């Protein structure tokens, strides 16, 4: 099948590649760019393990073709820690509050939570639960994921204002 040239910015870096028009964005990220943090869990857009941030929105990258991301700015879990290696408050919060077990949903969950906290920096518990309803977790029962997001929200809100990470 003929291939198409795509260009986009992923985690602040300009990338390009040759893809079949039918190639899913998740496969481009995982297999062409070797960014294997985002996972595939369901094939039907339900589980959210493949969630990345694309042009300021949470996107399930299994439900988008790579060619549709032409010119987009994408952040994946690999782009969440700072250049000096320090972790994002969400990455820290998930560990502190035991918000993960097998780790398979975690990258998508953190990416979704990151966008949620930018849209709503001080969400209530119900707002957090509704905000992550597109991401399934089979291990934790969500209670500690909610706490992890609350931890991150508190930490981000307490920190001196910096330019948004995304």
């Amino acid at each position, binding site marked *: *099948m003929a291939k198409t040239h795509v260009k986009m910015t992923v985690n602040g870096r300009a990338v390009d590649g040759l893809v*079949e028009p*039918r*190639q899913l964005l998740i*496969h481009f990220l*995982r*297999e062409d760019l*070797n*960014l*294997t*943090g*985002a*996972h*595939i*869990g*369901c*094939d*039907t857009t*339900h*589980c959210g*393990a493949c969630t990345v941030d694309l042009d300021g929105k949470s996107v399930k990258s299994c439900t988008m073709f790579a060619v549709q991301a032409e010119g987009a700015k994408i952040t*994946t*879990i*690999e782009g*969440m*820690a700072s250049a000096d290696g320090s*972790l994002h408050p969400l*990455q*820290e919060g*998930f*560990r*502190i509050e*035991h918000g*993960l*077990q*097998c*780790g*398979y*949903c*975690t*990258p998508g969950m*953190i990416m979704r939570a990151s966008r949620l906290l930018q849209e709503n920096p001080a969400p209530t518990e119900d707002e*957090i*639960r*509704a905000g*992550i*309803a*597109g*991401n*399934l*977790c*089979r*291990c*934790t*029962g*969500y*209670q*500690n*994921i*909610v706490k992890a997001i609350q931890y991150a929200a508190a930490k981000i809100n307490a920190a001196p204002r910096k330019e948004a990470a995304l």
Partner: protein
Amino acid sequence: MTTTTLTREQREAKLEGMGCKRKRVEDIRFTQGKGNYIDDLKLPGMLFGDFVRSQYAHARIKKIDTSKALKVQGVLAVLTAEELKGVNLAWMPTLAQDVQMVLADGKVLFQNQEIAFVVAEDRYAAADGVEAVEVEYEDLPVLVDALKAMDPDAPVLREDLAGKTSGAHGPRKHHNHIFEWSVGDKAGTEAAFANAEVKIKELISYHRTHPSPLETCQCVASFDKIKGELTVHGTFQAPHVIRTVASLLSKIPEHKIHVVSPDIGGGFGNKVGAYPGYICAIVASIVTGKPVKWVEDRIENLTTTSFARDYHMTTEIAATKDGKVTGLRVHVIADHGGFDACADPSKFPAGFFAIVTGSYDFPVAHVVVDGVYTNKAPGGVAYRCSLRVTEAAYAIERGMDILAQKLSMDPAELRLKNFVKREQFPYKSALGWEYDSGDYHAAMRKAMDAVGYRQLRAEQAAKREAFTRGETREIMGVGTCFFTEIVGAGPSKNCDILGLAMFDSCEIRVHPTGSATARMGSKSQGQGHETTYPQIIASEIGIPADDIMVEEGNTDTAPYGIGTFGSRSTPVAGAAIAMAARKIRNKAQMIAAYVLEVHESDLEWDIDGFRVKGLPEKFKGMKEIAWIAYNKPPPGMEPGLEAVSYYDPPNMTYPFGAYICVMDIDVDTGEYKVRRFYALDDCGTRINPMIIEGQVHGGLTEAFAIAMGQEIRYDEIGNVVGGSFMDFFLPTAVETPKWETDHTVTPSPHHPIGAKGVGESPNVGGVPAFSNAVNDAFSFLGSTHIQMPHDHWRNWMAAKRLGLHG
């Protein structure tokens, strides 16, 4: 050293040993997207395999035409049963001593059964190839209802078994019969029922569901023709078992097979078995000479690899008028699907279902389980429970509620009246198990106090009156469950899988500078072994948990073990850790005695080293001892400080718990609200309370899903209804209730550290608690038993049947 600068408390804290809420080691990589799961693996020249699957539940295969598929760009090979026959692998043995088609051989027995395996350069080309394979079917009558499997005119499913009047577990009564397994005192139980003042009898079904970990089953097989070596990376909960099975099937010597389980994205029992995908990937790698990856998609996962439950349990309890149980009789029709691929120990085709007497002192009991074939996917795995324990817990816990209703007794009071008493442990149950320890009354009373049980019942009585007066359309249910599990399979005297004794193992190497590596026969799928195992070692030999690395899943380096399922990691592998650590401590004691110039018996263990009794300043820490062990061992002693333990447990462990669920149901819409869910668990010694709580949260969420909607359902012609996340209920954060956790601690007397295991308790205890809440809500309206799952539609139907819709 340490003793002079740190207080005892500081030394203890530094170890992060047992009882500490240690943060997880695994999270550092998982939160950064640096986990290492199977689909992340890329090997040079790797190909991709994908299945052609049956559209029919029962059909003869007239013809498979692969010619068009072989012309698809990127497709290299298509395997069918004919190709597999060449290497004698068209069929494979199952863990339950049945055989299963790897690829359809003449017929198919369930929808989505594997027919052909297309091997291509990438996953897209493989999917193109699958589309191009043409299969001609002749459909056959379909058997879906397990209760009709042994009807005289039921269709013959397993033609390969024609004329076989006995199977792996004794005589077969019918062409769709797999086994009959019975336990207990038949005559004694009949007598108890003949003399009973009160009896209940109910068909209690536990529907078919699926473990559905977020990562599906996957592998990469790579055969090196020059060396004659096979490497299989896979999502294996039991990597060593996979290696042995692969060796027996392929005839490749076991030392030339390397099985690696990297990070696993959840298992819940789904990843114990051996599936056609693994066999096909291995054969395809041998045929093509290249690594072959196979990754299930979600629909394939839900519809083919290992369902759970599908037990239909006619449960009878005999009792006195004042509520003392006098006998239990259960007959089960067990739906095993088209092939018997249960993952049960070979002597237990119904797993540990004999735990069905539960937490109650039944003087006599009798159980019969009939396994049958149907046109459904094979399996019958323990979905986050020990083998068939959740089915047993459901039967007895529903049964006790039904009995309470019949006696007009409070369900909690009935339980308290019949519990095995603390002083009866170790307790031999009527069905032969020896319960190790328990204090059921204390746990139940703590739970009742915590939720304000009596106030809840008073509130419920008031609401029922209000409902009857027509003032509300909401009914309230209080679901009570007191479960006893049997986990940690198991003692080799009665537990093996395919002849493999179910011990487990640990090898600890303390390095010269005092850090250590532990290698295990178990395999975490999210349980946090890398975090909790070092806590055991830290408490045993005084090396800080942070200085201990755990390795699992590589059969080249790990000692042989049976893997992680059935809550066996802590009861079996956890015991092996303690025993290996104690061997190291014994050697360390000899070394310390030598350098401190005292007799070994003059030393006592003190947190992180040995001290001379009565002379507190004379102390040798483990770190120093480790250096001496390698570099200046006492004369005549071998250098080094390492040990291995293969632990064959003397008994199972018996965790227990008291769960209470409060639920409100709208009879007009069937919608429910879980107002409160309280879970008290007693798993014996607690290694990491944070991880225990997390396990309980997760297991309760799975129990909630199963009880309230999660089902693999089939229509009358065997189509799977609900084979994707579109229809298969996995709760989101919105539906999931909030969990309250609590505990008591009754250590196991036979386990080296007293731990019993906890990961599966919430699934085992949670399902009956939810179902009892729904049933309790409807009970005052004349309902005795409503089958699970209790989704809105079924609640609405229950209300309609009871005449509540006018």
